[in-house]
Each structure stands twice: as C-alpha cells, then as structure tokens.
C-alpha cells in the first residue's frame, strides 16, 4: 500500500492520540465542560488551551473560534447562518462551482429558498479573476464564498484580493480553508476575511472536529443552526467534545511548528513526481504547478479510462474526483467546470502527498503510473 491520498484524510500524529487519550481518561478531564465543579473547570481549561493553539496558528483571538464537527458543518453554519442573518439587507450570494459540495450544496439549497446565487466561472487553471468577480458584486450582495486551496486541484485562490473587494463593499467573505489550514500561512488579523472554515483531519488531526472563525466586526454574525444548551454563546450548542478539541489544538501546535518544513518537503515530493511522469504524452495538469498547493497534483491522461487507471495503479491509494464523491461514477464537477471534457475529467487522478511520504514512495508511484497509463493506452482501440 502506498498512500497518496492525504488530501482525503491523514493519519493522526501519535502525540495527538496521546493527548486525546489523556483527555478522555485522566480524572477530571472527562467531566462535562459545562459543569461548574472543579472537574468541569479542568475540562474547560483543556478546551481554552486548545483554542489558544488553534488561534495562534491562524493569528486570531481564541474567542473568535466556534467548535464544530468538521468543515462540512462549519461551511453550512457560515453560509446558512450569514445568509439568513443578513437576509433583510439583501439576498444575493456569490460563489463558484469549483467549491467543495459542503459549500455548493448549501448555496443550491438557499437558491431554492428565495436567495439568488451567482456562480463565477473560474479561469482555466481554476483561479478566480478578480475583475470578473468584481463585476458580479451588487448592492444587495451579502456573502461571497470562495475557498483557499481547492481540494481537487490544489489551486490557491488570492483570498486577500477577494476579501479586499468584499470589504470595500460591506459584503461578508467566507473562506473554506479545509485544505489550507495548518498547511499554508494564514493571518486572520491581517486578512479581510470574515468567516473561515477549518477541519483537523486534513492536517494530521482527528476526524470529526472543525472550527468556524467569525471576525469581530460589525455586521459579521451567523444565525445558529442547532439549538439547545447555551454552549458556545448559543452559536453551536452540545457538550463540547474535550478529546476532539484537545486533539485539534495539538494538531494546530504541531502544524505551526512544522509548516515551513512541511511545505518544503511537499514541494520536493511534488516536483520529483512530476519530473518522473511529465514526459508521458497526453498529460494535462488540472490546476497549475505555479499557483498550486504542492501537496496536491491532479493529472489527466488522454485516452485512459479513470476507473481502470485507478485499479491498474493498485496498491497506490489515490483519488479520482474529491474524496467526498469518489464513489460516484460521474466525472468530477470541478474539472468539468474547468472546461475538461468528460473523458479527460474521467481520467484525472489526484495525487496528494503528506508528511510521511518518502522519495521511495514517489518513485514507486511514478513507475506504477507510467506502467498503468502505457498499458491502458495499448489496450484501448484508439491509441493516443
């Protein structure tokens, strides 16, 4: 097994597992953080410390963070919450079809509930053109949601530039940072971003724990989606899962320390991999090497069917389409939005690299990919 699917999920760092175990078993730590007794306060302290660590990673203050069950919930809370909170001012929303389903589906649902959604078309490499974006912003636009790093192509959007356009017009800007949090520098104090979704399991933390950043700025607020005990200033009730949050905090602390080293490692891996396959004819990079996050390389191969390619690549674990819809047989809607033909989109493989990835794994992947593409092309009626 060679795992090159780190954009889908990651192994949890042993230090993080230890911290989580202690948060579940050590006397006091397991108490309900809503309780007033000393044991409950001990749990709150663990949670506060985790908030400090995540806040430090993205340079904001801990009280700006709401804990959620993952980026899917953060995206939903941000989008539904901001849209309904501001619906009296206007009902126009802006996003892109290349966003994750956890963003496009809430917008599609809002469109059925009387909101108007404008989908901005991406440039061929997947980035948004700021001029095009500017041209669709209106007086009644309330929310723009455009992600940081795309989960399929790795393309990096200019969130500073997008945010500036929004802030000038009093429009809220939400960023799905599920794929960038802990991997690229993020300075929320400096960025014109109002809402940001994060999740731990994409950077060596536990699955099922996310956060939503809500800027401390007039007009920035979300209506809650869940109602219950008054936890988290009523924005997101439910017993706080101490061990999950402790794990997220530890994840953030490790990421803050390792970010530069991680990035250099990923860049070296990605370049080694690309150097190993680039001379194959008929390859198309989905996204761009220049503007892409180096942890992801998405490549289509002309004349090769995707599902067969995936099987021929075994024991390589990689993805076609994004993890969340890799079960469906349909070509990725993201790649189609980039203008790929069905056939080319079908042949796309997302290679994603991680901390544990080695040069030897890259070399083995190169060999497997070259072999599989060559063999399947020989097998196909119309050779490339």
């Amino acid at each position: 097994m060679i795992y090159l699917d780190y954009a889908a999920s990651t192994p949890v760092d042993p230090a993080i597992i230890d911290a989580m175990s202690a948060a579940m078993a050590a006397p006091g730590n397991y108490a309900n953080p809503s309780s007033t007794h000393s044991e409950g306060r001990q749990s709150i302290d663990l949670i506060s410390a985790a908030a400090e660590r995540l806040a430090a990673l993205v340079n904001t203050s801990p009280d700006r963070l709401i804990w959620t069950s993952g980026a899917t919930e953060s995206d939903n809370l941000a989008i539904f919450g901001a849209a309904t909170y501001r619906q009296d001012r206007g009902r126009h929303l802006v996003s892109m079809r290349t966003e994750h389903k956890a963003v496009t589906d809430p917008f599609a649902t809002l469109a059925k509930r009387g909101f108007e959604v404008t989908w901005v078309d991406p440039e061929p490499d997947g980035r948004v053109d700021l001029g095009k974006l500017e041209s669709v912003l209106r007086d009644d636009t309330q929310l723009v949601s455009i992600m940081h790093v795309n989960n399929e192509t790795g393309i990096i959007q200019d969130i500073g530039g997008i945010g500036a356009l929004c802030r000038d017009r009093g429009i809220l800007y939400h960023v799905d940072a599920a794929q960038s949090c802990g991997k690229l520098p993020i300075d929320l104090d400096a960025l014109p971003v109002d809402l940001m979704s994060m999740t731990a399991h994409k950077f060596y933390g536990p699955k099922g724990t996310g956060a939503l950043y809500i800027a401390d700025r007039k007009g920035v607020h979300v209506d809650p989606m869940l109602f219950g005990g008054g936890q988290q200033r009523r924005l997101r009730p439910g017993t706080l899962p101490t061990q999950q949050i402790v794990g997220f905090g530890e994840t953030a602390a490790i990421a803050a320390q390792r970010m530069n080293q991680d990035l250099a490692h990923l860049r070296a891996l990605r370049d080694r991999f690309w150097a190993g396959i680039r001379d194959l004819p008929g390859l198309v990079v989905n996204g761009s090497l220049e503007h892409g996050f180096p942890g992801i390389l998405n490549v289509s191969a002309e004349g090769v069917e995707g599902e067969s390619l995936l099987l021929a690549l075994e024991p390589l674990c990689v993805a076609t389409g994004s993890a969340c819809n890799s079960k469906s047989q349909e070509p990725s809607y993201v790649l189609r939005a980039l203008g790929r033909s069905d056939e080319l989109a079908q042949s796309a493989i997302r290679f994603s690299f991680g901390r544990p990835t080695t040069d030897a794994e890259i070399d083995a992947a190169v060999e497997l990919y070259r072999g599989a593409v060559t063999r399947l092309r020989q097998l196909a009626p119309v050779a490339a």
Partner: protein
Amino acid sequence: MSPDPYSDRVRELFARPGHAGVLEGNCSAAVVDQGVKIRLTAHVRDGRVEAMAFLAYGCPHVIAAAEAACAELEGRSAVELLEFPATGLMQSLSVPVEKTGRILVLEDAVRSLGRVITEMD
C-alpha cells in the same frame, strides 16, 4: 464487510488479458457507446472463430468482460456470436447493475462481429 467492487476473477482478467490486441485479418467490428470503446478482431475458418482479440477503453468490468468473451467465443460459430447474450458474463463477473449498459456495448460488438463473419461467408 464493504465488498471489494471487483471480484477475484475480474481482477485476474483485468491484470492479465491474454486476448488483448489485434489479429490481422478482415474480420473486425468496433462499437463506441456509453463512453465505452470496443474493437474485436478474429481469425475465422469454416465459419468458426479460431482466435479472437479485443481492444477496449472502459472500466475494469468492461475490460474483464471483453477478455472473458474472447476466451469463451473461440471455437464458436458466427450464429453463436449473433445470439451472444451478455447476461452470463454479467453474472459470472458480478457486474454491478449500473454498468449493465456498458456490458451491452460488448454484446453489441460481439454480434456485429458475428454479422461481419456471416456476411463474409
């Protein structure tokens, strides 16, 4: 247990398709449909298929089914090709229902080849 989408037999046929390739000769048929491309070629003697080969662009089930069909149909008559039902392959390879259409493309190709052979007679 969540099942492996590919049976051992599909994996085996996909990994070692002994009938992959092109047989020189004038008996050949090609079909493109449902995102699947199949080309079949055959050596025919006395109205019987002596040897058969395939080229295919498609999912693993399509490739495995093409390989299995070639192996199965060697020695058969044109009439048998004309009446070739893909149902047996769908069962023996546990092809998921949503892929039925693709296997019918293979059936089409086999029947076309049968017609080509018949017309040549």
